[in-house]
């Protein structure tokens, strides 16, 4: 199978592969509805194959042609009966054009949000809304821009209107088809003959690029996100070999020879600032390599921007394994950038899950080549993203402190940990959604919930007890690190979700939370607590989770324990005073 996100985007190849494709074998299955005012029969096979190549089996509902309103406004429509996980709303510029010339653009500004509202009233599915590739015609020439209501400027304002609206609506993801089209060039994107003959919204050759943009959003929604970029140094991050020319001799400067590298570092810094961890993996002397970061004044990236720094003469696959162990993230969430084809192939060979893009020969083209792969899709952005790099740094300090203790209990005591357990809070919802998406290893059932679903659990005060757990210690705040969702069912408390960030493994957090869960069950006068374990490729670390707490296997995936049998486990975490109790 193709590794993530590097599928070859050839239309005929994708259509050919779609024939006779059995996608039921994938462990991850999703349901996608596609509603459009263009014809989509050619588009669906492309989407299906691309998802398949990313390890996802998709079943499609193709709405009738040009029936977006009919399907979404009627709660009994085939669309709602299909119970989609995602709906793609694909509005064609060509269809917009014909409505614009007959009724003007005003109604359009209301139409799309009305459709969203209808969908969100009747379904919890995630909405992927496409924006409009700008048209090529400009009746007034360049003066068009000065007019409010030429088709060209009206499409521009409609796009920016949609952008503004989705900022307040986390369940709607905008698929930026306009940027896909402009990247390929508007003249190539549109093929009006195809629109006239069969209502195809762009040239056949570009259907895969449009599909890829949607697939990227789906993957990000399912938690397939890049968390770390691993960087080679010589001729990747700067020009020249530091071992030969010294820290001051490498090419890195705002102007002239080192400008390509300077620009590349600025790009990497922007990734770091948006929450992607940077790691170094280089064949170099540690001291030589670090000296560039510490003493070369032209470096954009500083030593502190790099979370894990591996400069040695070991092979790079081993070094990347170590980076994985330090950061506790999956190989498939790592991107490895190296100018040397030998190293790229070595890593591809030994660690096939790591994403290893080809890099062009000329460093001036690095950013453009990487951007084309659109590796860094996300669906939400929270405070924790901004602080992530610092959090992992504090973690390194803690590990250092740990080395000075011989007894783990003494160490845990010295951390002065304090936790807060509360019901989900509105201000944390985006972080909660993100934890659901990003947690793979310490995750008992790996359900991926959207913000809307998280919010609906938060508001279900009768049946649902959705708990968020935050932790701090003397080195700093970890923020929200664990989530447990429990449901009252007759005389039992049933735990549907239990997950925790691997950053806080081995500190007694899960024991602390389990104490809390049983205290809650006792308070509600319930007799049993039950929970599930659904195995995935990544969550083997918690396969004995329930057994370790003394739960009995109750058949299938379910484990159970009488409330009376539970003895609270001593932990070194104290409770921060907190206002509200879990549930009444």
């Amino acid at each position: 199978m193709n590794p993530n996100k590097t599928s070859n985007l050839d239309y005929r190849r994708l259509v050919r592969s779609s024939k006779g494709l059995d996608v039921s074998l994938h462990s991850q299955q999703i349901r996608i509805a596609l509603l459009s005012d263009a014809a989509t029969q050619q588009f669906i096979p492309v989407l299906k194959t691309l998802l398949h190549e990313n390890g996802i089996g998709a079943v499609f509902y193709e709405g009738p042609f040009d029936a977006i309103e009919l399907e979404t406004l009627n709660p009994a429509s085939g669309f709602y009966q299909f119970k989609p996980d995602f709906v793609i709303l694909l509005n064609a510029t060509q269809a917009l054009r014909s409505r614009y010339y007959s009724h003007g653009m005003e109604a359009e500004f209301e139409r799309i949000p009305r459709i969203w509202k209808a969908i969100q009233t009747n379904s919890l599915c995630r909405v992927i809304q496409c924006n409009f590739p700008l048209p090529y015609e400009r009746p007034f020439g360049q003066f068009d821009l000065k007019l409010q209501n030429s088709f060209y400027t009206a499409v521009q304002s409609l796009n920016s209107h949609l952008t503004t609206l989705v900022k307040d609506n986390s369940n709607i993801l905008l698929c930026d088809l306009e940027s896909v089209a402009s990247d390929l060039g508007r003249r190539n994107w549109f093929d009006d003959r195809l629109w006239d003959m069969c209502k195809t919204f762009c040239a056949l050759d570009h259907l895969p690029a449009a599909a890829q943009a949607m697939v990227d959003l789906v993957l990000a929604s399912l938690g397939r996100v890049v968390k770390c970029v691993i960087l080679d140094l010589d001729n990747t991050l700067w020009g020249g070999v530091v071992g030969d020319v010294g820290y001051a001799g490498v090419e890195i400067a705002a102007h002239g020879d080192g400008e390509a590298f300077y620009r590349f570092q600025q790009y990497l810094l922007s990734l770091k600032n948006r929450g992607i961890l940077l790691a170094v993996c280089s064949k170099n002397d540690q001291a030589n390599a670090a000296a560039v970061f510490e003493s070369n004044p032209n470096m954009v990236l500083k030593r502190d921007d790099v979370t894990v720094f591996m400069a040695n003469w070991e092979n790079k696959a081993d070094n990347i394994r170590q980076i994985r162990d330090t950061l506790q993230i999956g190989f498939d969430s790592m991107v490895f950038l190296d100018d040397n084809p030998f190293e790229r192939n070595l890593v591809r060979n030994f660690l096939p899950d790591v994403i290893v893009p080809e890099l062009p020969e000329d460093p001036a083209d690095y950013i453009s080549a990487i951007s084309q792969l659109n590796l860094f899709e996300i669906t939400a952005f929270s405070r924790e993203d901004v602080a992530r790099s610092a959090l992992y740094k504090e973690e390194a300090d803690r590990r250092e402190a740990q080395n000075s203790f011989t007894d783990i209990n003494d160490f845990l005591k010295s951390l002065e940990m304090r936790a807060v357990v509360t019901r989900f809070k509105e201000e944390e919802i985006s972080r909660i959604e993100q934890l659901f998406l990003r947690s793979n290893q310490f995750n008992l059932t790996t359900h991926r919930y959207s913000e809307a679903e998280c919010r609906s659990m938060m508001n279900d005060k009768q049946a649902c007890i959705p708990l968020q757990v935050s932790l701090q210690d003397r080195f700093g705040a970890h923020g929200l690190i664990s989530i447990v969702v429990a449901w009252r069912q007759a005389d039992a408390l049933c735990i549907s979700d239990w997950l925790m960030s691997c950053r806080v493994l081995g500190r007694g957090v899960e024991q602390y939370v389990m104490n809390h869960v049983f205290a809650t069950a006792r308070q509600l006068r319930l007799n049993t607590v039950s929970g599930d374990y659904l195995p995935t490729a990544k969550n083997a670390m918690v396969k004995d989770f329930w057994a370790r707490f003394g739960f009995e296997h109750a058949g299938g995936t379910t484990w159970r324990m009488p409330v009376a049998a539970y003895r609270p486990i001593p932990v070194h975490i104290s409770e921060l005073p907190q206002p509200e109790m879990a549930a009444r």
Partner: protein
Amino acid sequence: MNSDEIKTRLTKVFRDIFDSPNLELRDGTTASDIEEWDSLTHVDLIVEVEKEFKIKLSTSEVRKMKNVGDFIALIGTKVS
């Protein structure tokens, strides 16, 4: 390019589009002879023919092409 040569290359395109490696074309072959030949695959066919012969076909030319003979004749006038 003579019509035999056009027919050979056209057969290759048809076999690819209709996923049918043994498909044989006659001048009189129409959409009703090939199960998957509908208005959408017709468009796939046109786009592939344009690429194969490096020509451009107009909407009205596309509409007039009903059978394989029409394809061969039109391609013949475009490539010569």
